């Protein structure tokens, strides 16, 4: 009885593993096939010639993904960097310096996580047009920074409460002001929350579709996922090109996950405790 159940569960698991890997396998292999070969052979057949780099060249020259890649790299880098700087500063102040109304200030910033993004799109579109930020890289950086600040603040705030007060008390007695306490004591210890924020926010910005779609128009400004989405749908590219796009544009986030893997779980627990 016990064995039968365990065989059943194991076969179910193996079935699920195949189900999970099959889409990955079929897309990987499509990116390595020529256009004709893809159309004429079943999905599982092994590619006859090695045309992957040819596919990359064709895909990128036809759909100009490198423009989008370049923009997205700027957005992911600058957006998370600004969010890291501003939210760590704010978290330190709210936790340690406790300005008046600090709880209210926290709630105001935190409220940025409560609403679905659809709630911001129309006024942002209007505002970006009025301020000449529509379809500009600086506009995209501003919105990505704003949208990533609340979560980052939450992570830093949670972490800073765990830093013992005794160290900074000693520093204060030695005559350190609040800024030098932040720079000399808090920043050097903040590697872990910074890694969490960098991992989650960079990959979030990299994977964003909605804001890119609504707030930009040209191939020089639109982020990578908007460029990719344009390849799907009616009049989109060949599936060989689509898969080449998927494969090459997923590399940055996959690498980020591999490098910062150990921070993934602590980031997920922050996500969990926010809800």
């Amino acid at each position, binding site marked *: 009885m016990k064995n039968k159940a365990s065989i059943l569960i194991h076969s179910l698991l193996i079935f699920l593993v195949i189900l999970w890997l099959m889409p990955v396998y079929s897309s990987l292999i499509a990116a390595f096939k020529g256009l004709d070969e893809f159309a004429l052979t079943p999905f599982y057949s092994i590619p006859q010639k090695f045309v992957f780099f040819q596919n990359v060249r064709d895909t990128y020259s036809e759909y100009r993904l490198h423009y989008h890649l370049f923009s997205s790299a700027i957005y992911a880098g600058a957006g998370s960097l600004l969010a890291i700087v501003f939210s760590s500063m704010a978290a330190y102040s709210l936790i340690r310096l406790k300005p008046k109304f600090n709880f209210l200030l926290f709630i105001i910033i935190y409220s*940025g996580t409560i609403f679905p993004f659809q709630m*911001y799109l129309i006024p942002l579109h209007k505002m970006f047009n009025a301020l000449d930020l529509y379809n500009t890289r600086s506009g995209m950086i501003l919105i990505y920074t704003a949208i990533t600040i609340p979560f980052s603040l939450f992570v830093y705030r949670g972490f800073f409460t765990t830093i013992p007060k005794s160290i900074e008390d000693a520093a204060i007695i030695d005559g350190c002001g609040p800024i030098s306490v932040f720079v000399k004591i808090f920043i050097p210890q903040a590697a872990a929350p910074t890694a969490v924020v960098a991992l989650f926010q960079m990959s979030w910005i990299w994977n964003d579709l909605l804001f890119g779609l609504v707030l930009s128009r040209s191939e020089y400004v639109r982020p990578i996922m908007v460029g990719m989405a344009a390849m799907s749908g009616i009049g989109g590219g060949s599936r060989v090109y689509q898969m080449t796009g998927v494969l090459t544009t997923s590399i940055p986030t996959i690498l980020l996950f591999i490098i910062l893997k150990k921070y993934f779980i602590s980031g997920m627990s922050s996500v969990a405790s926010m809800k």
Partner: protein
Amino acid sequence: MIHSTVKDKFISYILVLPALLFVTVFLLYPMLDNVFISFFKSSGLGKPEFIGVKNYIRAFQDSNFILSFSNTLIWVIFTLAVPVIGSLLIAVFLKNLKGGTFYKSIFFLPLTLSFVSTGIIWMNVFSSNNGVLNTILSLLSGGEKVKISWLASVPLNTVSMLVAWTWQQLGTSMVLFLMGLTTIPNDPIEASIIDGANKWQTFIHVTFPMLKPITTVVITQALVNSFKTFDLIYVITRGGPYRSSETLAVTMYRETFTMFNIGYGSAISVILSAIIIMITGKYIKNQMTRDLLHY
């Protein structure tokens, strides 16, 4: 703070200011403006006309909105039924399994991909022309060419997209459940097994009740994410054919940015937000009371 001078007070505000400004200017103000816009009829050109709650009334008389709303409910119910329960069962099973890490990494793999990539990957699976699924079905049926249009017929298109969604989302819920499982002690589970309970009884009466806190988190998150679904549908069907697979977020986008019914679009986003706040309201309140105790 031992000394709290005027200068230190000033610094404490300066440090909060940039974060506060970003959130107020780009999130809070637009949110309020959005509620305001929803009371106007506007096409983006000319002067908006105040029409009170007519945009909201229109929504509940609009067959496209009603279809989109019911599609959204299908997404929500399916998400609770398949990825949430599925990830719980898999997490419980994998927890003490030898080689569980291998399985876990397979289920986590899609987490690193965007919804756009997920959509494109699954379009290749569901394509009616030389697609992966039709090829497999053709092989199983013994040479007969299967040509099912998974993405062009109702309700197959929504079901197909939900499969892609599950593939992407299962890992997220699983991580949270696995986290929850590490926090519960082993003693009660062992005790119940010694008392003669089988694995299923132990799970229902011992493990699951102890997982309640993380379960509420997973359910809330899954509810919110499924209500907000946009990317996957935008990439795979654009809400079509004939607006048949739209959800609220997609309808809001289409009404606003392709049909220029701007006031109506913002009313839809307000409705969507109201639903989401109703779901998360209790958790936000708990979070805030917990926080207030810290202060």
